[in-house]
């Protein structure tokens, strides 16, 4: 049993080792339906005590697999080689995680290393209280009495910022908000004071404002608890905010490794440079927006707007006498022909509901919503269906935007067939090919099935379908949120090009101010169903009036460590003020 424990790692003479984790030439392969696949290839990394190492990459880079290997959490279909040397909590010895037996792994997990997961709502067992789950982790490592474990649980909950921990320790997970759930998950990871925490996309599923708070908490873990953190993420802003050193992974290999400041200011590897170049940042779109505004014909602003919303209110029906949830409350805005309005908000803000209301998928409860001259409050489908050929919709989730049993060509041809421009998908093929070309997809893709395309390609096909009938209005609901950064950049670029070429009006919904900035002529900010700010990009992003907008803007991390440090202080001041 003690064969696997080696002498303390290099860099230490006496006392606890300085290196918490050392990965040597790691290789991991999986068996899948398509055959054997290599996820990680020859990766070597080191993490020192109390340091934050960020592993950055897009999908397929192998970063999550690497993270899971550190804890030995790979599924049975995986085969790994190489060494992952993890120092024990007291620093006296280290283990090679890959060669540990199940029993030894169990001892290592939680005490030497622990994990924070991406999705807080699924990382907690819904039928047990959070206290029970924390205590379970404590008592799995040594005999601790119930009372002691409970006391520890309450203490750690308090330290991660959960108010009233003595009461909340008995709550079930669903009684917490998303951000609080993530705090609980971090508490579970911290409770046995491991030397290393592996955080796998810890803030990806959270709103931007909540993200900033969780990043603060992780920073406190490093500073107050002295834990090293391996941070897995694809978000360069998060990296700039938290990381001391950064490793960039691409297709299973580490292509660059440097300290944060150097990586951002002078990246050496071509891939890293491209990656950094495609990260959207606030202020990017000012020049473009100005150019667009200049290019418009005079008298443009007086044209009849394509969409006019006047104090609309949308309330979902309640169940059995309970009042329903009010998603949108008293929002007014308008979209003129050829204009792009960016609708920004966090979860629960009502932005998707508004998009759906305009498309006729959700009913307006009160107020007036006029789409292409047709009143949506109390509309009849039969009358509205004539106008549907003038509206296009792009959905957020590329995975389910297409019928999995139809080819891409059949899907893109659907609007043409439905509105009688073609008899069947085959006869519409010529037009479909044109559309595919317009979105920069090869014609041959028309014969493929949706699952044979990547996410970015599917979103482009989705755009093609939405533009098939040359609509006057395009509604895009978070179309790039589920895509990699570089792919997102291309799709946004494509969107801008198409908008220039076809001249449709657009409602671009997103949670990301920087993304919206690239495309929008005007930006509207929603908060809990209310419109709190509206104006051009320069106005809203340059000189925001509303405190929520300011906070939102301040919480958005930028890909530059020095600037980000300054912004952090700014945000702290804002929060303290109100």
């Amino acid at each position: 049993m003690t064969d696997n424990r080696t002498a303390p790692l290099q860099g230490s003479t006496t006392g606890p080792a300085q290196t918490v984790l050392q990965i040597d030439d790691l290789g991991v392969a999986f068996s899948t339906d398509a055959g054997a696949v290599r996820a990680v290839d020859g990766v070597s990394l080191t993490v020192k005590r109390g340091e934050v190492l960020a592993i950055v990459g897009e999908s397929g880079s192998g970063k999550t697999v690497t993270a899971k290997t550190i804890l030995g959490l790979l599924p049975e279909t995986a085969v790994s080689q190489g060494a992952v040397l993890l120092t024990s909590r007291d620093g006296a010895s280290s283990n090679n995680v890959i060669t540990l037996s199940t029993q030894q792994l169990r001892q290592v997990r939680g005490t030497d290393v622990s994990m924070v997961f991406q999705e807080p709502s699924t990382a907690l067992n819904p039928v047990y209280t959070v206290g029970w789950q924390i205590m379970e982790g404590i008592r799995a490592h040594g005999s601790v009495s119930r009372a002691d474990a409970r006391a520890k649980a309450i203490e750690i909950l308090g330290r991660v910022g959960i108010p009233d921990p003595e009461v909340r320790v008995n709550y079930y997970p669903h009684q917490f908000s998303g951000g609080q759930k993530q705090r609980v998950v971090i508490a579970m990871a911290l409770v046995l004071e491991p030397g290393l925490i592996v955080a796998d996309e810890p803030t990806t599923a959270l709103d931007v404002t909540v993200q900033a708070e969780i990043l603060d908490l992780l920073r406190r873990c490093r500073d107050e608890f002295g834990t090293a953190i391996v941070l897995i993420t694809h978000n360069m802003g998060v990296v700039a905010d938290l990381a001391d050193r950064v490793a960039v992974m691409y297709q299973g290999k580490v292509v660059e490794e440097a300290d944060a400041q150097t990586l951002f200011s002078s990246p050496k590897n071509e891939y890293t440079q491209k990656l950094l170049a495609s990260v959207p940042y606030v202020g990017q779109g000012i020049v473009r927006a100005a150019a667009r505004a200049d290019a418009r014909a005079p008298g443009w602003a007086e044209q009849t707007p394509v969409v006019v919303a006047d104090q609309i209110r949308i309330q979902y029906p309640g169940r059995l006498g309970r009042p329903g949830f009010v998603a949108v409350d008293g929002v007014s805005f308008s979209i003129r022909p050829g204009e792009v309005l960016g609708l920004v908000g966090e979860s629960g803000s009502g932005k998707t509901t508004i998009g759906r209301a305009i498309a006729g998928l959700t009913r307006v409860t009160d107020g007036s919503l006029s789409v292409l001259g047709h009143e949506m409050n109390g509309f009849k489908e039969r009358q509205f269906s004539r106008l549907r050929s003038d509206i296009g919709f792009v959905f957020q989730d590329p995975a389910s935007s297409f019928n999995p049993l139809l080819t891409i060509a059949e899907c893109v041809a659907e609007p043409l067939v439905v509105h009688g421009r073609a008899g069947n998908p085959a006869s519409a093929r010529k037009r479909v090919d044109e559309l595919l070309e317009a979105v920069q997809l090869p014609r041959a893709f028309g014969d493929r099935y949706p699952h044979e395309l990547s996410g970015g390609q599917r979103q482009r096909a989705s755009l093609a379908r939405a533009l098939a009938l040359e609509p006057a209005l395009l509604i895009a609901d978070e179309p790039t949120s589920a895509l990699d950064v570089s792919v997102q950049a291309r799709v946004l670029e494509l969107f801008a090009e198409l908008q220039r070429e076809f001249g449709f009006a657009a409602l671009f919904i997103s949670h990301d101010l920087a993304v919206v900035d690239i495309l929008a002529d005007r930006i509207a900010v929603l908060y809990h169903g209310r419109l709190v700010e509206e104006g051009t990009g320069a106005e809203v992003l340059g000189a925001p009036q509303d405190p929520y907008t300011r906070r939102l803007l301040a919480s958005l991390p930028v890909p530059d460590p020095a600037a980000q440090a300054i912004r952090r202080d700014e945000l702290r001041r804002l929060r303290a003020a109100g």
Partner: protein
Amino acid sequence: MTLTTPTGPASGPAPSRRKPSLLGRLPVVHQLRQSVGLQRGMLVAGLVITAAFVLTAILAPVIAPYGYGQLRDTDGAFGAQQPLGGSHLLGTTVGGYDVLSRVLWGSQTALFVIVVAVLLSIFAGVFLGLVSGYFGGWLDRVLVVVCDAIYAFPSLLLAIVMSIVISGGQSNLIGGVLAAAISITVVFIPQYFRVIRAETVRIKSEAYVESARVLGAGNSRIMFRHVLRNATRTLPLIFTLNSSEAILTLAGLGFLGFGIEPTAAAEWGYDLNKSLSDVTSGIWWTSLFPGLAIVLVVMGITLVGESLNDLADPRLRGRRAVGASSGLVAETSVVPGGTLIAGPGGLAGLETPATSTPSDEEGRS
């Protein structure tokens, strides 16, 4: 911003691709190719048994030594309760019929009932489930309550009642089969209804259905082109489950005395009913063989169903093990929860790690 990042499994010159051959896309063949190890064994065993059953049913007139209602031949009457051997390989029953023949002919009756029962219930059940799930409203609620009530009630008892109503109990082949089949139908429509309705409700909120609605496609187009084809992907599985239950119910009816007259057709449950008294006197061949026939056929069909169920769920599907250094580096993305939740195309068809932005407002279900 012109990047040449790899765009995924489809990068490079696209292989000229037509739809995979029809044979490769048939539900069972596709799974057969995919499966491995134990699951493959189960699937193969089940298919072999089921095929044997169907063949026996079709060829019964040819391979059975005697007719199902035959009591005598040129050598005289068979005699009752004769032990194994001689001209009666498996002995004779208390009524004087040849056991082997009745077992073989019984497969024909069983197949007949399955076909009729499943055919009748599939169409009604699927259609009702689709319409009810898609439109919702009061019609949906009423149908759900009715179907839940029927579904929860012991199917055998309902089948008995229906059997009495239709044919007064005993009958000829057509009457008996129809009685059994219709009674099984009434009981199984709720099953199909429930499953298809649940699938329809789930699919209704998928993005591609909403996309079709935004386009302005009519309800019937959406229902049949988008929803139905995707909702029925679990049908082969239910089909096998219902086939096995049909046989068991038919046998149950026969056992309780509501089956088919021996002179009209052979039926395994009826034979078991008649052999109840034999058991106390130690005569085992009149009950063992018909019973074994039932067990074997139901097992075969259920094995097929179980392995289809496993293979349809990537979580339960097994995969071939891999050597450590094999495999090309390719697009992989490990989604939360592990690779086992990978999409049908394996890892290569996956989306980027769910950068699931805080989705949306409550009340959207």
